């Protein structure tokens, strides 16, 4: 610790702190324009000048000067104030005074400091800049006339996002923040630059002219897209969510959000939202009252009580823990069926079965904080960035700032493969299990297995014939990764899972866990396996037991049950099986066949359109409760706006049904949480109030064991391409299709081809192509690039039009032909 005095106050701080950090720690505010706590110090704006007694004669920038023992600092002398005023005058020399029409007004550091330092006139005069304003993308407006050259946008885009869209271009008086060839902004539109811009140079276009900053009601909540569990602050006005607000002190991610979190909130106020219940009459869905709709559902479910095996229920892992708990209690307890599931039946087996078998808990043995505490990250599929972008930022930071080694095994290349020192091993699609088995065998062969691992002999036998060739990679690559992984001090495996990733199932989780267990890389900080659930509350759905137990049917079997007539009543809360479950035709036929289907959802999705009763549900912004992130962090979701139209939260819907069917009745969702804390062991001792803003990570007690996993052999089919499905960066599930932001950037399904394949097929970027498999064909737009290896075609699964589940059947690998339309 270093001791120093700031404005007469004694302070003790870490030795790598700056004067600015030290002042902040003791509550002294030093004005700042170019500084952000997430970024490397820059020292460009000169607003933070202070006096240091030991360095008399000049003013010192507080944000770049490290503290030294015995330093005596003054932060506001007459001279300092004069210097800061000069800085402001110089900035205002070029900066346009267009505050009345600037969206940053009220949230502008330059404006606030001008006011604070009473700069009401300027001794200097000069012409203002006349740069053209960049309106060429729908999300970020760049008005470089307002730019004060703090460089935050360029720094965050480089240091954290690793995209590098911005740079200082030209020099001297002509210098400005620019892009490659000074063209329009063309990036992944995460909006990080907008969030840190201290003035109005970078603005969110969807928010433009929607509200003044000070008129917004700010509500802290949790993002409802992926499982990362990023916290966000919703800015709302007149019952509408108008923007998300950056708060550098929020969450493990310090306010960083991805493109979905930042620009995807519009689904909340979409004019496509369902606003009233609907009942199918004469073949058509017609508006009805809640009483009618609930009465209809109650009578069906109540009839089902006598034959519970004929009732099934599917829930989306986007509901709150309280809603999921109530869902389980209603169907398992009151109705008496065990046919309940969320997408687990297709996608989250890695969590529900794999993690339990390998680690004895249905959760990741590691948490998000472990990413930056590790020495080596082994990422399965580089899509970890695309499925969970903010964890991608954590990986970026770890690799760039801490020098963490990054190894990727993937069926295609992604952004992570370009990080410094990253090594990517591209394997044949669907061979992940074979690859991990080969890694385990290599660990054993090289004598790198940890001592006294139980079940080693069984694993040895199981992986005896696992070879690198079977995984489609070279023996050298396998040997190198195995050695590096085993000999790293702390190594962490990162495994994304989701609906769009066939084969990311229990076997893969076991195979990956085997590597961690075999090498002793688990049960300690920075090591283990991070299983990244796809949806915001995938972990909560597992914790609340929303998957079949005993003889109950899982999601796949429920669809089969609908098809063969065994399931007569189906309750769907927020799931969209028609687009997201494999084999669309089969799902549609099955749902047509079911006698009675009720869907509660925000939108009239492809599935809701087939229902007999549709119940309008509330979005996350209209309700309170808790979500549990993939890192087992339980966090508070807070109501920001009243329900849209006549929508009710799934909690209210389930509570009403529960009561009508003679089940439990709760006064509010908080009562359910109390019950969860009493009944779910991991949540023991938690209270909603006690979660506060940061939430709580519940502990896990591991009982690791090696579980041999069988690799599925799939032989390539001559003349066909291998289809890889998954997530597109801008989307999450099928809900992001109702967010304007994601749809501006990525509106349609596409098929990504390697340049060589595209050339052979005479397909160019933007061409319409038909992708055909054994189960069907879809027409999508072609994208051509070098990310996918030759012989592989990638397609995201989110879209209703050109939905990729038309051509997949849930097996590890789908072989397709691609032809120009």
């Amino acid at each position, binding site marked *: 610790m270093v001791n120093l005095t700031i404005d007469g106050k004694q302070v003790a701080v870490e030795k790598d702190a700056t004067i600015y950090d030290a002042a902040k720690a003791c509550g002294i505010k030093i004005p700042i324009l170019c500084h952000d706590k997430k970024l490397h110090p820059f020292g460009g704006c000169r607003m933070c000048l202070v006096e240091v007694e030991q360095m008399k004669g000049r003013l010192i920038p507080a944000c770049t000067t490290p503290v030294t023992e015995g330093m005596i600092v003054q932060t506001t002398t007459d001279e300092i104030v004069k210097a800061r005023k000069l800085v402001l005058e110089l900035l205002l020399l070029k900066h346009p005074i267009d505050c009345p029409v600037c969206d940053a007004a009220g949230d502008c550091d330059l404006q606030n400091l001008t006011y604070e330092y009473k700069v009401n006139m300027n001794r200097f005069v000069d012409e203002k800049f006349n740069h053209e304003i960049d309106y060429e993308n729908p999300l970020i407006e760049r008005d470089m006339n307002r730019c004060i050259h703090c460089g935050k946008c360029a720094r965050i885009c480089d240091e954290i996002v690793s995209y*590098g869209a*911005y*740079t200082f*271009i030209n*020099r001297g008086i002509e210098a400005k923040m620019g892009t*490659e060839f000074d063209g329009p902004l063309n990036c992944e539109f995460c909006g990080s630059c907008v969030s840190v811009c201290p003035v109005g140079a970078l603005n969110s276009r969807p928010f433009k002219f929607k509200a003044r900053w000070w008129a917004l009601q700010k509500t802290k909540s949790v993002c409802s897209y992926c499982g990362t569990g990023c916290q966000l602050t919703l800015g709302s006005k007149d019952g509408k969510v108008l923007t998300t607000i950056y708060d550098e002190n929020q969450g493990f991610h310090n306010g960083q959000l991805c493109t979905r979190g930042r620009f995807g909130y519009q689904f909340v106020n979409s004019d496509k939202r369902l606003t009233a219940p609907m009942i199918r009459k004469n073949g058509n869905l017609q508006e009805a009252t809640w009483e009618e709709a609930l009465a209809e559902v109650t009578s069906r479910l109540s009839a089902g009580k006598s034959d519970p095996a004929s009732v099934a229920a599917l829930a989306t892992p986007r509901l709150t823990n309280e809603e999921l708990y109530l869902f389980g209690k209603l169907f398992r307890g009151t109705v008496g069926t065990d046919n309940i599931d969320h997408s687990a039946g297709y996608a989250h087996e890695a969590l529900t079965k794999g993690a339990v078998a390998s680690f004895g808990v249905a959760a990741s043995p590691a948490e998000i904080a472990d990413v930056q505490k590790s020495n080596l990250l082994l990422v399965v599929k580089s899509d970890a960035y695309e499925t969970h972008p903010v964890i991608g930022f954590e990986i970026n930071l770890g690799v760039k700032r801490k020098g963490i080694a990054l190894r990727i095994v993937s069926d295609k290349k992604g952004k992570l493969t370009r990080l410094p020192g990253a090594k990517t091993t591209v394997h044949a699609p669907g061979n992940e299990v074979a690859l991990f088995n080969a890694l385990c065998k290599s660990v054993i062969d090289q004598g790198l297995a940890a001592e006294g691992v139980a079940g080693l002999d069984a694993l040895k036998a199981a992986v005896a014939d696992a070879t690198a060739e079977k995984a489609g990679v070279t023996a050298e690559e396998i040997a190198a990764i195995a050695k590096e992984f085993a000999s790293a001090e702390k190594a962490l495996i990162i495994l994304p899972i989701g609906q769009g990733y066939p084969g990311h199932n229990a076997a893969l989780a076991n195979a990956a866990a085997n590597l961690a267990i075999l090498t002793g890389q688990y049960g300690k900080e920075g090591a283990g396996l991070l299983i990244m659930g796809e949806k915001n509350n995938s972990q909560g759905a597992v914790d609340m037991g929303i998957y079949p137990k005993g003889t109950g049917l899982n999601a796949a079997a429920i669809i089969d049950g609908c098809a063969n007539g065994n399931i007569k009543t189906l309750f769907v809360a927020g799931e969209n099986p028609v687009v997201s479950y494999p084999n669309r035709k089969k799902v549609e036929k099955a749902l047509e066949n079911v006698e009675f289907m009720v869907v509660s959802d925000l939108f009239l999705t492809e599935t809701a359109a087939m229902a007999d009763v549709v119940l309008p549900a509330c979005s996350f912004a209209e309700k309170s409760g808790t979500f549990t992130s993939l890192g087992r962090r339980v966090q508070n979701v807070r109501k920001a706006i009243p329900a849209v139209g006549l929508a009710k939260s799934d909690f209210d819907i389930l509570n009403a049904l529960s009561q009508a069917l003679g089940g439990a009745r709760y006064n509010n969702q908080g009562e359910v949480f109390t019950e969860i804390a009493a009944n779910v062991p991991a949540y023991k001792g938690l209270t909603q109030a006690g979660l506060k803003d940061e939430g709580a990570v519940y502990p896990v007690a591991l009982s690791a064991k090696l579980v041999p996993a069988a690799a599925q052999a799939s032989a390539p089919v001559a003349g066909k391409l291998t289809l890889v499905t998954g997530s597109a960066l801008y989307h999450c599930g099928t809900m992001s299709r109702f967010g304007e932001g994601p749809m501006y950037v990525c509106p349609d399904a596409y098929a990504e081809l390697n340049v060589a394949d595209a050339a052979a097929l005479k397909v160019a970027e933007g061409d319409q192509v038909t992708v055909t498999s054994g189960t069907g064909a879809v027409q999508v737009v072609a994208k051509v690039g070098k990310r996918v290896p030759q012989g592989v075609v990638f397609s995201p699964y989110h879209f209703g039009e050109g939905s990729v589940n038309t051509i997949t059947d849930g097996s590890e690998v789908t072989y397709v032909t691609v032809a120009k339309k």
Partner: protein
Amino acid sequence: MSNAPAEEIAAEEIDLTEANEIIDKYLTLPGNLMPVLQGIQDAYGFVPKPTIDLVAERLNVYPSQIYGVLTFYAQFHLKPRGKFIIRVCVGTACHVQGAERITETFFGRLGIGHAETTEDLRYTFEKVACLGACGMAPLAMVNDDTYGKMTVQKVDEIIETYNARPMK
């Protein structure tokens, strides 16, 4: 940095063979961006856009950063330059001796302005602050040839001389 081998990057628009060779030469050298860009400029006479994309991909540097470097240093050029670079000094001594009239005459004769290149890529014209030979003011240079005590008449002579030179 995961520097990519040459064969992964296909040539577009222009022949990138030479650029690839230059990158190969410096690939493993730390701080290789400047010598690579200088090499490319020497080879192509300017830094063509496809070479920026190539350098970005092979050296794993953001294209925006390369553009930042290229626009920071006066030595780099992003547009094709003429075979003959005419530079007229407009420093103090030359200014006093009528440099303005010399530049205006060049503008008129060549039909281009400052930092511009003729369509046939024969000439690029630049006003420069000082060429360091004030005793010969007003001064012009064409590539490495120096012309002191410039007059309007000499402008015509210079243009005739270089018009007669072959382009290859």
